[in-house]
């Protein structure tokens, strides 16, 4: 896992990620329409980190799916940072291949040249060293989620999309993994979009937080964070949390 050990020149696509969803409606199995998104427009500057926060079921995952190109039936437009670049995604569920071992699940996302690379460091830091020859059915949910993170961290993407990456983990592990993400990301800044329900996490990691309303989702407000990550100590964090809570009632 070379991008963990040696410093790499800043990466990420040359352009901003520009999302402009003007409407997204699902046709339900019962024939009724479900309006998921009313209007979500935001942009993420090259090599910066944005977080989406919104009530459960408001349309966050739908937005990420549109960004990932998994859903093209919406009205609006989308500009990716780098159309040829790779994308690292952590889905809301682990989405591992049940018939491949942990090791293979991670290795499969590598390109052919990288496939024989050394992943020991990565597995070690994620606490998966012992699990490499296991199958997903033998993992606890927290372990499986970590494998999904390993998969995203194993490649060098130009865009990262993370849907609640640190959920279902104990506080200690989550903290360690957030630190890992910060490291990986600082070593090679990539345009990143994350969804979380954890405002603390958002404040710690992001450059920009986008608050969404209830379904059908609209952008409720955008909170910019200019403070360099290194300087975000716990006092600053509490102050920021309070200021956000004041501005967007009901978030905390």
């Amino acid at each position, binding site marked *: 896992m070379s991008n963990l050990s040696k410093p790499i020149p800043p990466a990420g696509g040359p352009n901003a990620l520009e999302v402009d969803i003007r409407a997204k409606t699902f046709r339900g199995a019962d024939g009724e329409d479900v309006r998921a998104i009313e209007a979500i427009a935001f942009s993420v500057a090259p090599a910066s980190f944005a977080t989406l926060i919104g009530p459960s079921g408001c349309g966050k995952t739908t937005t990420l799916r549109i960004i990932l190109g998994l*859903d093209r039936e919406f009205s609006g437009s989308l500009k990716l940072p*780098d159309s040829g670049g790779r994308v690292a995604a952590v889905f809301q569920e682990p989405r591992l291949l049940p018939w491949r071992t942990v090791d293979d699940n991670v290795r499969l996302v590598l390109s052919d040249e990288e496939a024989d690379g050394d992943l020991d460091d990565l597995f070690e830091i994620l606490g998966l060293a012992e699990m490499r020859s296991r199958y997903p059915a033998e993992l606890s949910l927290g372990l499986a989620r970590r494998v999904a993170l390993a998969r995203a961290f194993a490649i060098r993407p130009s865009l990262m999309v993370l849907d609640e990456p640190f959920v279902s983990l104990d506080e200690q592990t989550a903290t360690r993994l957030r630190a890992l993400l910060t490291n990986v990301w600082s070593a090679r800044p990539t345009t990143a979009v994350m969804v979380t329900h954890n405002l603390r996490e958002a404040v710690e990691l992001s450059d920009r937080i986008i608050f969404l309303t209830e379904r059908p989702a609209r952008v409720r407000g955008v909170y910019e964070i200019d403070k360099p990550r290194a300087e975000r100590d716990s006092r600053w964090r509490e102050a920021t949390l309070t200021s956000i809570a004041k501005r967007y009632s009901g978030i905390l």
Partner: protein
Amino acid sequence: MADDRQSGTAGRALMPASGAGVLPSVGPRLVTVVSLAGLLAIWWVAAILADSRVLPTPPQVAEAFWRDAATGELFFHLAMTLMRVVAAFVLAMVIGSVIGICLGMNREANRFFDPWLILFLNIPALVIIVLAYIWFGLNEAAAIGAIAVNKIPNVVVTLREGARTLDRDLEEMARVYRFSAMKTLRHVVLPQLQPYFAAASRTGISLIWKIALVVELLGRSNGVGFQINLYFQLFDVASILAYTLAFVAVMLTIEFFLVQPFEAHSTRWRPKRARG
């Protein structure tokens, strides 16, 4: 390079995901009609090119069809065969599914009965049919039983594979919430087996029909198999095809007006395939 994916207008987004596609304006019925017409055209051209008694043209087959349809003979034989096919199908599906699901869910039973299954899978239809006729007489029950016995092992194998892949998580949920055996079967097990049932019945009905032909050939005095054999002796391929296509027409009707609507209904919960 930036990638600008402009995804149409608001109107597009309101379209159901399943309706869009290569032929968005063509209705499903029309596609079927075009498909059948294409098949007919291919056959016609091939028959004209071959110009052989062995591959008659559609009009020749139609003529053979009308000849036997006018006397009502064709419908009589078709009805007899359908009766046998339906009876044997119901028997085979019920018995085969029960056995298959049990074997799939119980490793020990499966280990014990697996050799039996392989034996019954591989006994030639001829042997079963002849033995059935000899033991139970040349009658309808023997005929239908013989067809069913031929098909049962296939149903068992398919449903057994299905039962092996049953979701453990859902089974546990049902256990914890004390679902009765009936409830578990109806709401947890059978819906998971739907694709296996679909496969077993589609391949099943065609296999049963083919075996019915042999059964009728060997010891029945009516039915499509009886007629086909008669025409085979005369090498009258047009008549053979007329009977075959009459049966196929019945199957197509069942497929399009019964099976497909039912299937669409029972699988409406499935997430639609992504078409990014």
